[in-house]
């Protein structure tokens, strides 16, 4: 799988939002996802297709229903390649500090 596609797919806030929506509830239909997206159905379809090509979204057909699943495997590979080999503990401490100071939760994009 082409890692460029994964980074490109993640570079768009609408696509990250779709991944967040699937993280909250896995296996949603296009119609369900559209309810939370401020764009045309066609726009959402195109974003989902890009996520699918990057292997960040996996499709399961149930009868005539097309269900979208968050596939975290490419994210895990990025994590292994770019994060885990660095000093994880210190990064964790920095993140905690940042969250404490900013009052953020981790799910925000």
């Amino acid at each position: 799988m082409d890692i460029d596609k994964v980074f490109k797919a993640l570079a768009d806030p609408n696509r990250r939002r779709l991944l967040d929506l699937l993280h909250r509830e896995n296996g949603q239909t296009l119609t369900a996802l559209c309810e939370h997206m401020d764009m045309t159905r066609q726009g959402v379809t195109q974003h989902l297709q890009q996520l699918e090509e990057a292997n960040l979204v996996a499709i399961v057909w149930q009868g005539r229903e097309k269900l979208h699943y968050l596939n975290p495997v490419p994210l895990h590979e990025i994590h292994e390649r770019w994060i885990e080999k660095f000093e994880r503990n210190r990064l964790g401490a920095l993140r905690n500090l940042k969250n404490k100071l900013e009052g953020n939760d981790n799910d925000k994009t």
Partner: protein
Amino acid sequence: MTKPSFVYVTYIATTPEKVWQALVDTDVMRKYWADPTADAPAHENVSDWRPGSQWEHRRLDDARTVDIVGKVVESAPPRRLVFTWARPKDAEDDSKHSRVTFDIEPHGDGLIRLTVTHEDLERDPQMLAGISSGWPKVLSNLKTFLETGRALPRAPSAS
């Protein structure tokens, strides 16, 4: 089929036969199957992988502690393996079992597409949380192992 709880997909530069062997051969499995709660590969799955047989997910400690058990539902080498998944105390209670399916499909260009589907995990929320972080690691380790012949490097200095 019920609606799956999780679907994981990875593409691996290998053959369906090698993936199958990695799923059923204990010696191969030890090299990549990580314990979801620990950093080191620390489990093996033991069975004869015939439909109806039991399987056990055992820790590689001295006691070979069994953490997960289940029954083999379908076994079609080298394409499809289906088994149930439960805590040892729920071994006899099918209503507590979730279900794991491995589908191995040739994808062209020397790649295979491996799909892992885990269904009915909602029956055990605690298991659901553990599983969701465990599978990506197992699949990522499996891919590295099959493509490079070694398990994932653990040392911070490894590239």
